[in-house]
């Protein structure tokens, strides 16, 4: 999957799961009130299912901001 398409789909997923209207690459879990622990689990689960990837524990720990999630999904998808 192309990087732009991954980003587009990831942003759609983030908005859908977190139920927010806007998201940008620099945002972190702490800055978005809707991104609480329950939503975080739903988000990681949705990412695994949508992109058909498996997220390792070591990687999942750093997935607390949009940029690192995008990097990981891009790396796993390719």
């Amino acid at each position, binding site marked *: 999957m192309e990087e732009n398409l991954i980003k587009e789909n990831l942003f759609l997923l983030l908005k859908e799961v977190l*139920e927010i209207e806007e998201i940008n690459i620099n945002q972190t*879990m*702490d800055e978005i*009130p*809707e*991104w*609480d*622990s*329950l*939503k*975080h*689990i*739903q988000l*990681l*689960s949705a990412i*695994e*299912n949508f992109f058909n990837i*498996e*997220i*390792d*524990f070591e990687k*999942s*720990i*750093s*997935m*607390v901001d949009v940029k690192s999630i995008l990097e990981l999904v891009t790396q796993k998808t390719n």
Partner: protein
Amino acid sequence: MKNQLHQKIDHKIDLKYENIGELLIDKVNKASNKTFIICPGKTIDKCTYSEFLRNTLIIANHLSDSGLVKGNKICLVFNNSTEFLLFYFGGLLLGLVIVPINPDLSSLEIKYIIENSNADKIYFQEHLANKISNVKSILKRKLSTLVVSPFDQFKSNQFGSKEFPIGELPKIHHNSTAVIIYTSGTTGNPKGVVLSHLNIISDAYSISKWFKFSSNTRTLCVLPLYHNNGQITTLIAPLYKGGSTVIVKGSVSIMAFWDLVAKYEVTWSSVMASILSILLSLKKERKDNSFKGILCGGQILSDNVQNQFEKRFKVPIYEGYGLTETTSFSCINNYPKNDRVKGSIGQPLPTNYMKIVDENDNECDSFQEGEICIKGLNVAVEYLGMIEKNRTAFRNGWFHSGDFGYKDDKGYYYFNCRKDNLIIKGGENIYPAELENVLFQQKNIEECAVIGIKDALLGQNVCAFVKLDENNKIDENDILNFCKGKISSYKLPKEIIIINNLDDMNELPKGPTKKILYRTLEEYYKNI
């Protein structure tokens, strides 16, 4: 200080320890080099019993140097972390009262807990600095706060190296308050449940005895430590037998559940039913040889989820029942797995009794539905500062749970439903009034009612029925945006139904006394 009537039991139990500090120190003396805590995250914190006590005494020394003395209250706004544990035990060693706070709560909700508990100081993690700054700006009185660095940084810098001398620790009676845990309240404001050292030690004793925990027991704590289940079932219960606990930092532990079980050779865990559903939805399979079982409570566990889970992962689930008011569990299905009674929440723990009563507080016959009541060493002292609520909830020497169920003729208990309209979303309790109070602040909302709706993963989610005034100018998004920031995000409605837009409902359904009929709304929603 004596046990209250609702805490009395007729048989003798030797709990061995007067307070939680004594329990910890005894285990250090017996196995100082044994691993007690493993806290994996970006860095892995690992402490033996003696290392953990040393760091705890450093924090106790800091707390004491800050002027805090026995009976003072400290709020801990922390996600699961080693830092939380050190402040939790450090405070308890000094006889401080710990008030753990869910960091996901809104600033207004945190402010309420701080003021209601009359806390003396607030400790929080670095990433919560903005939120705590907001809280400080709206507090009615000035209060000292301190940001706590991650453990791997503060152990050498932030709190120095001076340990509080064990010989100078204050004497702490088993009836002294240890922890105040806030739980959702029917009126909208949370209630502070006062738990003593005795409550915590007795519940931990019972759970460790029930499952035959030993010094080889290693639990995985995936539930938040600011709630009772995480604290008691997966931390204090293994500690009671000199076992160990794996506690994952932050919020990603469920994703890593099976990896952690395998990597750290975990033997037990405790979860909500919604977590079992989440694990079923993930593509991860079990790969360990160590796991013995999962304790499950806090939400209704469906046969379907239990059967699917046990078939796929080959792990027995032991359903139990309890509330914050019973410290954690008050009954659990039989161990080992072949002794379990299908569909039952089990039998009372050794430290408490249970009964089912009718509306006149008379004990029900077998199979007759009534309110579940509990009394025993693990039943909370009281609700903080709620005289009337204490009188009704703890009447006649029994805690009245507000949950309905029955007992069979062999003494096994079964859970049916709640008396009130509590919504349990992913294990978090939400009372309709919490959101309704916020909705009513919107000037165009004439009336509203909040119900729980089914959610495949989380068990339940939140739906708000709203009637707008004649101006009728706002829509669902306006209402949602109005609520944001005034209440925790997880309490926001998943769905908002404006009844002005419905053909078959002009106003919220009400009974003869004009009380809103929540059950009718639930039925209505099911048929939409």
